[in-house]
């Protein structure tokens, strides 16, 4: 067991890689929720993204098409959710759950012919720098483009929500759809857009798993990550930067506990397995103690059905 500095660099690099799907899905869901829509279908959208991305990669042999296609598939499936909740005014929770169940079943059906096909190596950037610079090399370089995008996303999301007019519109719609509507904002349209954006990010998160992280298709391969992303959004009190921190803690402790087992720490394994969940919640609760800020960030009308009286 070597605990030298370059090993820690490699470790941090793999922790970053493991948190990417959580960051992507949670950032997407965050925008959806800030507009007042609670979409519990994250897991379903991710798994659809995973199979679509993998299938397109096998069929077209083009990773760009695969990535874009996975996002589109997320958009399409979230459109179903949008239509049901926004146009037909169905209950958000029930519809979201249905979307997850539907997504898992549909992906299994679509994926029948793609089981057992090895994936393609996804190109990584700056791989020579990764080897040549100790410690910082494996942290900063040698990742896929999706990872760099994922780590930029929380900051972009933060900027969007706080500094742009559109961000203000999204927040207004999430806090008080009635007032927003009276101001002439098309609430339903804004919510549709936020739902579709969330779908695209969840699709990308799924494709990251099936194309980059473990390049293959297996049924149910998201294995509950969508639910963790959902929980992250809430525990991070709808703050994009805290979502990033939470995802890194979760990914970090998941990997650290595996290392601790391999090193042979005499700590009950079940405790180690529960540790990522525990620590993520504790840390996020501690850094989000400011109740004024929580109130500010929480979309007041989350999950409530809005309809415009005619």
């Amino acid at each position: 067991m070597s605990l030298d500095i370059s090993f820690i660099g490699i470790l941090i690099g793999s922790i970053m890689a493991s948190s990417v799907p959580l960051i992507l899905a949670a950032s997407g869901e965050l925008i959806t929720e800030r507009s007042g829509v609670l979409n519990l279908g994250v897991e379903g959208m991710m798994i659809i993204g995973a199979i679509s991305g993998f299938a397109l990669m096998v069929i077209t042999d083009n990773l760009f098409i695969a990535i874009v296609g996975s996002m589109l598939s997320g958009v399409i499936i979230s459109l179903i959710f949008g239509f049901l909740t926004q146009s037909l005014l169905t209950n958000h929770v029930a519809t979201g759950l249905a979307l997850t169940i539907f997504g898992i079943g549909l992906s299994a059906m679509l994926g029948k012919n793609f089981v057992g096909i090895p994936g393609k190596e996804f190109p990584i950037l700056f791989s020579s720098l990764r080897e040549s610079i100790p410690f910082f090399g494996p942290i900063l370089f040698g990742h896929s483009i999706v990872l760099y995008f994922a780590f930029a996303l929380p900051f972009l999301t933060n900027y969007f929500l706080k500094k742009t007019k559109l961000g203000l519109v999204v927040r207004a719609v999430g806090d008080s759809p009635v007032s927003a509507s009276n101001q002439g904002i098309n609430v339903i349209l804004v919510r549709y857009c936020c739902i579709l954006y969330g779908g695209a990010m969840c699709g990308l998160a799924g494709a990251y798993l099936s194309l980059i992280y473990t390049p293959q298709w297996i049924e149910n391969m998201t294995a509950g990550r969508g639910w963790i992303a959902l929980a992250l959004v809430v525990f991070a009190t709808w703050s994009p930067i805290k979502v990033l921190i939470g995802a890194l803690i979760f990914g970090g402790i998941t990997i650290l506990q595996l290392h601790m087992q391999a090193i042979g720490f005499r700590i009950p394994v079940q405790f180690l397995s529960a540790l990522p969940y525990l620590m993520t919640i504790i840390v996020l609760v501690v850094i989000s103690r400011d109740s004024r800020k929580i109130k500010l960030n929480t979309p007041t009308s989350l999950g409530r059905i809005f309809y415009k009286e005619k």
Partner: protein
Amino acid sequence: MLHKKNLKGKFKMYKNFFRYLISAIFLLGFSVNSNADFKVGFVYVGPTGDHGWTFQHHEGRNAVEAAGIKTTFVESVPEGADAERVIRQLAQSGHDLIFTTSFGYMDPTNKVAKDFPNVKFEHATGYKREHSNVSTYSARFYEGRTLLGHIAGKMTKTNTIGYIASFPIPEVIRGINAMTLAAQKVNPNIKTKIVWVFTWYDPGKEAEAAQALIDQGADVIMQHTDSTAPVQTAEKAGVWSFGQASDMQRFAPKSILTSIIDDWAPYYVERAIAARDGTWKQQDTWHGLKEGMVAMGPYNSAMGADLVKEVEQLQKDLASGKVHSFTGPIYDQKGNILVAEGKVADDGMLAGMSVYVKGVEGDIPK
């Protein structure tokens, strides 16, 4: 690979329930035109596309079909009440022989068997045969592990073998012990490092576990989980690995030394024909390399001709019974004797194995 289902998450249950519902509707549709000719039913715990446990059972079903016998299957059936309904439905709709292929189907199978004395039942990996129309069968996967241990002991340079374990049940512990004993025999300095992932099936987590073991110095990786992620991780890292449940060679052509393959096909064909011809009798089957229920994938030429020859000989000896995976003296971690010198572990001890042998690091999660 025993009671997979109990241990899976609640949310998986939803999925299974949904798919079961669809399957049940289909079954109802099929139930009209039965009774006329001989039919065999299969109940699977997972999807046929899991490329592991259920996939191999499904291969067995295909062989029965190829032998000219009609079959039906229902996949992703949760253990418990749903299982009983599916099994009952199959029995009612004119199936003459029903294979229930997961440990948790044990009680439902026996319950339904009581009500359908003319239907034959075959339950995988269980031990209850309460009625004369119920047989049980399983495979001696640990014999395959012995071969892996021998290869791993010879191939490792760091003397560290990494083992990704799923759940602390006898089936898994037996595999760890069989592997370690065989590795120690060819390389006394061997260390087995184990990481428990508490899942049968999470490619991401399995890959992370494999990477953690590699980072901690393991240069041979093996798993008792279902996905191909560990062998792919090993391939990327340039260390050795083994396929699990089915031949995974094409996922890691350089890294995989061989695979343990579950081959249910001959047994299924034999039992189906026996049931059709009226020669089916109740029995308890625990087959291994000898009968071919456990088979090995092709050996990687990187092992070198000498080692391949050695392992092939060991495979023959295990099959003929000349060598037993658990031959004494075997000690537990504290040094207490488990199996005396010159003795071999009996099937009862193997079936209930719940302690590590000497040389395995760490504790079994309780």
